[in-house]
């Protein structure tokens, strides 16, 4: 069975402390619950969580929805976003199955990134690393007033934003990720993933986002 890999990159820098980080945790729980009740996602979706606060770390390796447990995360340190992008490129290279004479390739991975600030490391080297691997759609979310949407456009043209960093906005974002994964896992189940990569698939291929999420 072809798997649909999903990488979720979360900013866990100091500024996320309090309501934002708690909302992210609840968001991950909602995501888990939603996808576990979706018979299409249960068949194909696999999730990995990468956090970036003080340093980029893969807190959950690529895991089947059924065994996936939302990780305990803490807000701490700076915003090494470039490091997180290099790390996800490295993990994709390692974890996503390629086509061999004996094996069908996995679907191209979906990547979701959420940040409330601006990178404290070298973003462009991370972007360059990410370009070296094949991905499906990459979505970056600028959460709250201090995130820089234009900077995120350097990672992907699929940038969304949240006006505020409160529970309502963050939970809306996670619900939308869940809906996007459900829709994609159903489509890939059906073989219609728009696998043109970053420069082909657009946000219009995902379910319409709730009012809390702005498109750019």
């Amino acid at each position, binding site marked *: 069975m072809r798997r649909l890999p999903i990488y979720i990159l979360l900013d866990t820098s100091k500024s996320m402390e309090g309501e934002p980080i708690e909302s992210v945790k609840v968001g991950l729980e909602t995501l888990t619950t939603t996808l576990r009740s979706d018979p299409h996602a249960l068949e194909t979706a696999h999730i990995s969580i990468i956090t970036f606060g003080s340093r980029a770390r893969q807190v959950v390796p690529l895991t089947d929805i059924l065994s996936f447990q939302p990780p305990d995360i803490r807000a701490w340190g700076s915003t090494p976003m470039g490091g997180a992008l290099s790390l996800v490129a490295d993990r994709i290279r390692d974890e996503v199955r390629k*086509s061999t004479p004996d094996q069908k390739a996995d679907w191209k991975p979906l990547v979701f990134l959420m940040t409330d600030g601006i990178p404290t490391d070298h973003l462009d080297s991370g972007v360059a690393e990410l370009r070296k691997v094949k991905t499906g759609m990459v979505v970056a979310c600028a959460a709250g007033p201090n995130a820089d949407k234009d900077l995120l456009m350097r990672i992907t043209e699929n940038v969304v934003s949240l006006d505020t960093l409160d*529970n*309502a906005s963050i939970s809306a974002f996670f619900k939308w990720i869940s809906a996007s994964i459900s829709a994609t896992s159903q489509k890939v189940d059906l073989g*219609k993933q728009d696998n043109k990569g970053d420069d082909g698939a657009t946000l219009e291929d995902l*379910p319409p986002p709730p009012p809390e999420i702005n498109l750019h």
Partner: protein
Amino acid sequence: MKTVKTRAKTVKTRAKTANTRTKTVKIRTKTANTRTKTANTRTKTTNTRTKTANTRTKIVETKTISGKTIAFEAIHFASGGMKDVHYTTDKANVVAFFRDPVDRRGMERLKSIVGPYREGIFQNDGGEYWSELFRWPTDIVEHGGRVGVVVPAYEPHFYFKTGSIDNDTLNIKGKEKQGKWFSTCRNHNKLLHPEERGDWLSRIRSMIRVSRAVRRMHAAGLAHSDLSHKNVLIDPVSAKACVIDIDGLVVKGKHLPDVIGTHEFIAPEAVATSHLDRNDPKRVLPCPVTDQHALSVMIYMHMLLRHPLRGGKKHHDDPATDESLAMGKRALFIEHPRAHSNRVKPKQLRPEERKWGDPDKIPYTISGPYLTPLFKRAFVDGIADPRARPTPGEWELALMRTLDMIVPCAPGCDMGWHVHDGSNRPRCPSCGHGHSNQVPLLEVHSKRGSRHTPNGTRIAVWNKKSLFRWHADSEFVPNERLPVDMWGRVGYMQFHAGQWFIKNLGMEGMRNVSEDCEIPVGEHVFLKPGQILLLSPGERGHLVHVKMTNQ
């Protein structure tokens, strides 16, 4: 709420006072509330928006195009691929609003669906019979710049009662029973609670209903155009099925399809030509023949828990290209008798797929002598030649005949029932169990001219199996045309003190031909090998020859 436009009258009412007719609805509301609660306590902040939404439900009141007043909840409870679905206040119906605008042609189609097409099916002979096989739109609503259809709400048995294993670890209690839950090894055999799974008998019965529903649509010249796991609800527990999402009907030369279908179910010729413009004469769009492919795939998946075209063959390094070749231009049956390149590779299977996912262990031929040739026509001949595909009516008949050929298996067997292969030592292909007692088979003969000759059907006998009018006489067929008072049993079979007998409860003129005597209603006859019994003396009455197996 932004969704409520000024034209309509809005009233606030407490959600609790809303008349909740079905249990499932209550369950759903409860879950929604608890979830929000958790979110709130965890984050310490109160999310006022959500709270308002949960404790108070705004109601929209408006008129349908037929002039009826309709009141529905302003907030949708579900969102499908194309529609947002709202409950009416009495929960008997839903209003499903299309998110995209509906153009003039689309509106014409909807009007035909709620009008003449609906009347054609529901207001003819046996019309009432169809109401549980379809959720057919009854009316149209235009509100807030959007167009919606009024559809009867799903019956309660189409929502999970027990849900998944380990005290519903997946939290699916109260959710819709989509076909996908029952048609993959992982979902069905590993994750669903055993109480939700049903058995092979109930799977055959629910597939009879799906076939019958599609047969009826096709008879009216309508193609569903998107038969899939999402658009057919299945309840293996009560053996029911219901075709939903009937708003995209295709009528040749009149209503064109909006969607190409759902990929696992799209006919190979439609996949292979999907890159062409929709006006290109070579482009294949949904029509009754593509419905026939979808129906065949659905029956295969429900009976065998795997997809007929998803095998080990790799066509391309790019996953999307590979997939569309596998479902389209290079589609090949994984159990093709001669071309073996798409056979399943057992080492690619997950642990829970190793039995049902492997056709070497459970070949499609376990489906018996009536279904096997239809699967062959659908996936060996019908891939390249759509005309070879079985019609829904053929599936319905073959499934009904198969229903009479299955026998119960040992407790704990994951099929529960299996087709009696006609041999002297029938065994279950899944658990390998045989039978401890004799198993009689009744070979059915029909009159041709003045003589009775075998009509190709057999009735496998098991304890307390009922005999119905259609077993005794071809005059009767168990479908929408059979009057309600003709559905009762007219006899049953029982094993008692080492012997099998048939009890006659209502077969007038039943005779034991071997001993030339009548078997009056209320009497019974012991079954002996080679015995000949006449079940009905009518022109289309059946004669059965008794064969004892497992001697």
